[in-house]
């Protein structure tokens, strides 16, 4: 039996795990609620829907949050859980490489988060079609960036899952790293005019700013008053580079650490 055949087996059973978890359906329901809230609140609190379709498309882009929450909740226990709950005592005594197990888990997690993202973008597409009668071509680019961002966030989560002893600590640390630490450093770099293309939160912003940048987005929302510094739109190409680096580096590190880790 080849490692590739074993990989297919691992992916199948790991995917089964995700679709049997309540958290998948909770996040799916939250996605629907979030998009519904945007569709109701924007016209109610403003003067109807924005005239510019790009603004509405950007507002509806909850892809980065979905990718982050989905990836963290599905992958936080991917590696740490095998050690913490001791299921590794059964799994790792089988003739299968740990690399195969980790890759299989990664692909299954990615597939599960992809379901959420596809649902989110379907809602965006249907809503824009219903309100404006068209879907901007940039939606495809936004979707592509979101897929890459998902891969990057998953790799970061796998890295922390490989390093940490417990699933909960891996989940919390990844959440804090991506949503708090990265966001704070990103804001500081942005306000002081320093390059910040390498921050994951900037990369996440590119998923929405592809529709026209911060200025279009804020102008379309009625402006944000006088801001004492300039917002520099994230460069799409640099964001792609940054996300690719996160994806590759963190995933390779998680493979290395998982292979070295012992089950005492």
């Amino acid at each position, binding site marked *: 039996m080849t490692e590739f055949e074993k990989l297919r*087996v691992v992916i199948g059973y790991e995917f*089964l795990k995700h679709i049997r*978890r309540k958290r998948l359906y909770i996040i799916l329901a939250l996605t629907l609620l979030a998009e519904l809230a945007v569709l109701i609140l924007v016209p109610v609190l403003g003067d109807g829907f924005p005239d510019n379709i790009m603004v509405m498309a950007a507002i509806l882009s909850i892809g980065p949050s979905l990718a982050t929450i989905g990836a963290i909740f599905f992958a936080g226990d991917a590696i740490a859980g095998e050690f913490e709950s*001791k299921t590794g005592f*059964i799994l790792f005594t089988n003739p299968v490489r740990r690399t195969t197990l980790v890759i299989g888990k990664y692909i299954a997690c990615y597939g599960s988060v992809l379901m959420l993202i596809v649902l989110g973008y379907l809602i965006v597409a249907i809503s824009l079609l219903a309100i404006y009668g068209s879907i901007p071509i940039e939606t495809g680019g936004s979707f592509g960036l979101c897929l890459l961002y998902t891969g990057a966030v998953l790799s970061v989560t796998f890295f922390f899952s490989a390093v940490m002893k417990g699933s909960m600590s891996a989940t919390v640390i990844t959440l804090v790293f991506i949503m708090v630490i990265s966001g704070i450093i990103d804001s500081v770099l942005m306000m002081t005019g320093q390059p910040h293309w390498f921050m994951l939160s900037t990369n996440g912003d590119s998923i929405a700013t592809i529709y026209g940048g911060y200025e279009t987005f804020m102008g379309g929302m009625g402006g944000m008053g006088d801001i004492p510094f300039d917002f520099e739109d994230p460069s799409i190409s640099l964001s792609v580079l940054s996300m690719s680096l996160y994806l590759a580096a963190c995933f390779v590190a998680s493979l290395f650490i998982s292979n070295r880790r*012992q089950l*005492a």
Partner: protein
Amino acid sequence: MSEPIVIENLTKYYNKFLALNNLSLTVPANENVGLLGPNGAGKSTTLKILCGLLRASSGTAYIDGVDVSTKPEKALAKIGAIVETPEFYSFLTPEETLGYLGRLRGMDGDHLKSRIKEVIKQVRLEEWSKVKIEKFSRGMKQRLGLAQTLLHDPPVLILDEPGLGLDPRGVVEFRAIIEKAGQEKTIFFASHQLTEVTQICKQVAIIDHGRLLAFDSIATLKKKYKSLERAYLELTEAPLD
């Protein structure tokens, strides 16, 4: 043919704590060997190294002539193992769990299905075969643990306290299954239960502080020390009243 289990000068440190001290041992083919020793003697560490879960600080462990540290997949293909109290994915049923583990070992189709039925019947989990493991007691998980060691009919069984958590009936049934399996397989079996070891094994290895104190037939040890219990207590330096 190589010996099923060969341990050569195995040493293991956990930071500065010496868990195994130059341990060497050979388990001959089709023999059932018990591994005895007090808590912290190094029994589980030895079995974990054999199962590829831990790396030795020095020395080598071979399964059927294959070095576990350099070719773990090839070595692990020959064994069925229970290490510590087995835990399984709670979202799967026993049938699904065995299906997963069987497929990882290259089993498939009708052969896998019939083996799953056989081993589930053997460990008496028929009524629970389609129930999610999240509802299982420790003893039921232990039964499933034994089922997964037998599923692929491996020539070598490595068992770490397999009777732990079982009720008296479970212990008797368990012993019968292992005794039967031991007629055609090599079993390396760590336990604190001297009675259990006596019933299943003809030879025992007694270790303490990571060192091999004795490796002999139970009959010889009984002759020399009057009973296996006395042999165990004298060798591991416990006070004798």
